[in-house]
């Protein structure tokens, strides 16, 4: 972006168009020679419900240290031989926060997502307050980006009620004064974030700019109503007022149209199929693939640099419904119609249990998750940054679990897998890396270093002193040789 402004400045000072071809060439050479000026991005993806990785069957961790090849690729990666060079598989990474979350009960499900995205232990699983004291890592990074914005995309979520609200409570992260709320609808994401690429001021903006009273009257009414309400009701109305304020800011300060990026086509995912739970596989996959396309455009146009994705809640009833390539089936085991949570909980090694789900099905399920990650990776590979570098090479894509294997078999589990893809301009993917001596927090600290966040440790020391060891974050965080 900066080089375009410089170019304009140069053009002005040159006083004519004759120099344009030369300047274009010079700019291009300069950019291609310096990928470090490209924006760096982060994508964090949470896989729900754990997986099977045990002493007697290490699955994700089966490859020896070093390059991952088609002949030694772990079962979940085997269908993706063309992408093995894009991923680093972190073996045996310690997740102290996960373990502490597990100790709180519920098999660790309730705290899995907040634990994964924050590296903390949600001390209070009974309320949405959850006891988390800091932002999720994606929001930490988003706050340091020029856009100060993060996409939080979710599939198959139920985050508003009861227990599932608890399972989703990392939404307490705040950005620009607002809670970060998941977006589950690609069409709405498109409408709210890509309209500036359409080549003009969105018509809805002009209504408010022309007649601000449109929103001033409802705002005043909400303030009057607020004074007549009790404490809890007032909090609800505060959210309304806050939303109105956010809307006015948004409508009043939309950036000018950008001409260098092309608007993507609006996703075709049916708005009516945005149910969070009991979701059919078709809409599950369609939605996630549509999100991936939008992320690619958003990165290419530098609309955003930080994204968090949740593939589902910890108990979700997503069924895959046959809407995936059958080549992903491990040993022919289809997971069509089976719910993600059920699959993860029924994983006897070496066969199927009485419920009909077994190890093979669980491996197929892991492949489905990876299929969606690989789709994003390939879309980021296909587009370039101003330097000419692939967007993927400037992007960290990480995915993982934060709950133990489906049976919570902590005694024999080797830990929850985490994979890292992309970032070739500052990392060396394509390896199986023994991370026994590192914690998830070390990984985030390493990411922070790669993303230029300039942290001296992952979190201030006071974050770890609450209730002794509950945060999982630790001082003296070390860098993982990614």
């Amino acid at each position, binding site marked *: 972006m900066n080089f375009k402004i410089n170019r304009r400045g140069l053009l002005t000072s040159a006083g004519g168009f004759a120099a344009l071809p030369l300047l274009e060439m010079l700019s291009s050479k300069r950019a291609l020679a310096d990928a470090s000026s490209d924006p760096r991005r982060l994508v964090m993806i949470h896989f729900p419900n754990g997986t099977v990785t045990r002493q007697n069957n290490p699955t994700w961790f089966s490859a020896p240290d070093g390059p991952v090849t088609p002949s030694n690729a772990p079962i979940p990666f085997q269908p993706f031989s063309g992408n093995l060079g894009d991923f680093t598989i972190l073996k045996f990474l310690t997740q102290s926060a996960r373990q502490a979350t597990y100790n709180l009960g519920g098999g660790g499900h309730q705290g899995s997502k907040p634990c994964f995205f924050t590296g903390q232990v949600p001390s209070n699983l009974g309320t949405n307050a959850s006891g988390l004291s800091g932002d999720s890592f994606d929001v930490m990074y988003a706050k340091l980006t020029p856009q100060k914005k993060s996409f939080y995309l979710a599939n198959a979520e139920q985050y508003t009620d009861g227990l599932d609200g608890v399972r989703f409570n990392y939404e307490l992260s705040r950005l620009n004064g607002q809670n970060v*709320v998941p977006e589950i609808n690609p069409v709405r994401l498109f409408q709210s974030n890509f309209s500036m690429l359409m080549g003009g001021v969105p018509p809805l903006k002009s209504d408010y700019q022309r007649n601000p009273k449109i929103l001033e*009257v*409802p705002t005043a009414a909400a303030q009057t*109503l607020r004074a007549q309400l009790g404490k809890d009701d007032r909090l609800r*109305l505060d959210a309304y007022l806050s*939303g109105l304020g956010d809307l006015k800011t948004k409508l009043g300060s939309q950036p000018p149209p950008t001409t260098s990026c092309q608007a993507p086509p609006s996703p075709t995912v049916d708005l009516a199929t945005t149910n969070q*739970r009991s979701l059919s596989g078709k809409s599950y996959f369609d939605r996630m693939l549509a999100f991936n396309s939008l992320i690619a455009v958003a990165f290419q146009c530098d609309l955003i640099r930080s994204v968090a994705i949740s593939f589902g809640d910890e108990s979700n009833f997503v069924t895959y419904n046959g809407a995936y390539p059958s080549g992903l089936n491990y040993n022919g085991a289809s997971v069509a119609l089976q719910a993600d949570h059920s699959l993860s909980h029924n994983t006897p090694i070496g066969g199927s249990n009485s419920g*009909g789900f077994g190890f093979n099905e669980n491996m197929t399920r892991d492949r489905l998750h990876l299929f969606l990650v690989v789709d994003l990776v390939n879309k980021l590979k296909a587009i370039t940054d101003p330097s000419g570098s692939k967007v993927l090479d400037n992007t960290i894509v990480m995915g993982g679990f934060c709950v133990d294997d489906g*049976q919570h078999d902590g005694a024999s589990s080797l830990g929850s897998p985490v994979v890292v893809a992309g970032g070739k301009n500052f990392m060396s993917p394509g390896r199986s890396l023994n991370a026994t001596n590192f914690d998830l927090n070390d990984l985030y600290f390493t990411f922070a270093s790669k993303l230029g966040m300039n942290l001296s440790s992952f979190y201030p020391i006071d974050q770890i002193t609450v209730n002794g060891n509950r945060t999982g974050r630790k001082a003296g965080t070390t860098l993982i040789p990614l």
Partner: protein
Amino acid sequence: MFVFSLRNNGLQVSCLRGRCAFLSTTPPDLQIVKCRLCYVFRCTFPERPMTTNQAIDRDSRGTVFAVMVPAFLLMSCQGFVLQTPAPSGLPAEGNGMPGQPPGMNPGDPTQMPPTNCDPTSAAPGHSALRRLTNTEYTNTVQALLFTAKTPGSSFQEVAKGPSGFTNDAEALVIYPALISGYYDAASALAKDVVASKGVANGAWSKLVTCDQLQPACATSTVSKLAKRALRRALTADDLSSTNGLLAVFNAGGSFEQGLQDVVVSLLMHPEFTTIPILDAKALDSSATFQLDDFELANRLSYFLWQSMPDDPLFALAESGTLHEPATVAAQVKRLLADPKAQALRNTLRDEFAELSALARVDFLQLGQTNALRDAMIGETNAFFTDMLSNDRSALSIFTNQQSFVNKTLADFYGLTFPVGTNVNSFVPMTGDRTGVGAHASVLTNTAGGTATFTNPIKRGHWVTKQLMCAEPPPPPPNIPLLPAATQPNTTIRQLLDAHVRGPCSGCHVTMDNIGLGAENYDAFGRWRTQYAPNVAVDATGRFSDGSTFSNSRDMYLVLGKQPAVKSCFAQQMMKLALARSFNKRTTDDYCVATSIGEAAVTETGHFSDLIVRIALSNQFLRQSGEAP
């Protein structure tokens, strides 16, 4: 070490430094009590008495429990011995302590079927300010602006709240993206209004009924529209030309633009998007007050129509007579008889029977047809339509012995569809099933989601949760796998037998018993008597009150006669009406619901009797204040 002996029920509990165990067997009628305690304290429940040194570790729940257990146990024990609970009388929701899921509140003495309570003096409770559900939003803009659009479907779908319904204030979170969505919808709808000018019977012609060139037309048009949008009497401030709606109108610059802007402003108004209840006493938490007639009109219409009040309701509210009991009763019956009451039917189908998920299942993947899926859902839809339109007893939900089948479903059930009847219409036919729980839709939806096996736990869970209001908690961590079958033709009953003898028994005795009682229905709800040649289905069982059944048909018949289901259905309807879960600090809500259930969910009663009694209850007509 603490040892508690629970009076009158035979339960003995021992706790030592946070380690608890139950030292005695549990009488059948306390299985759910045991289940709830089990979940919270992570105790095990031996079938044979244990000694204290056999106490089981509580699964490393954390030191906080070591402190809390004795206190909570005392509360729990006290609570449980206050009453003689029937196993099915416990309400579903609760969140008594951190980490505790809905369905759990063992320390709450109100979670008992109340006895000797006076429903007429019950405190009404507080229904929180809530926004419209997405369906309510769509229905309301359709009624207000005469549009066929469904903008609510573009908002993020709302999950059920603790009450079990999507209109629960707790589920209806307000967040920035929603407000942005409201704005997008409002802008589009407002433009449609202007675009309809000149269209016969279009929205413009219904909203602008005066000569727009006359000065008074703007005021009357805005006033009329605002009253309907805000669903209350207007104040001078509402219409103010300096900072009210007429100011919005005037800033538009033209009648068309002004009206368009007013529509946007109204649709963004908090009293359009939410349903407030206000009173001078609203900020006094010790006070109760009666809803004003406009608030009552809103409560009635959003309960039964999921939409705004119509003109007759507004007129009664404006005259100040709506709250009169005879008027309330008459309006309930009028609203129920109106086609808009299909919204209530849809809620019963999608949220009470929980069929919304089934509609999205691709039956082709299950080796069946989607026509069959639609027929299954159509049966339940037809059943509720019949119940509402013919004002049948709410008890028919449990005891009705007629199936509603089209040709597809009749063939599937093995019934002979009447010749000459439209094959797509649903006609009542007597078959081998009783009540909604035995509809193929519900049986399939709760079978486990596969073509090949049922899931009795899931089926039992649905019945205990939806029909008995006694939802067990979710399974604790480290649940063991069911033992693998060691012999061919092992039945699911044999596999589940471990549940009723082991530590899982607290929760599973009731659930499994009911689920296994439905085993005469296969994964798609077809009647069967054997799993395979020479492997008979055993669907016999007994409820904790001693009543027995010999097959699935009998099981649902017996179930329908359980007093708990009557109270439960009254509870369910009250929660829907009040858009909230029950107040767990008092017995008031349960008292009223139980009273209404006993009186109205009867063989000779009518569905409208139940709704009228709810609408005339303190809980519906009144509201408790809230601390400022």
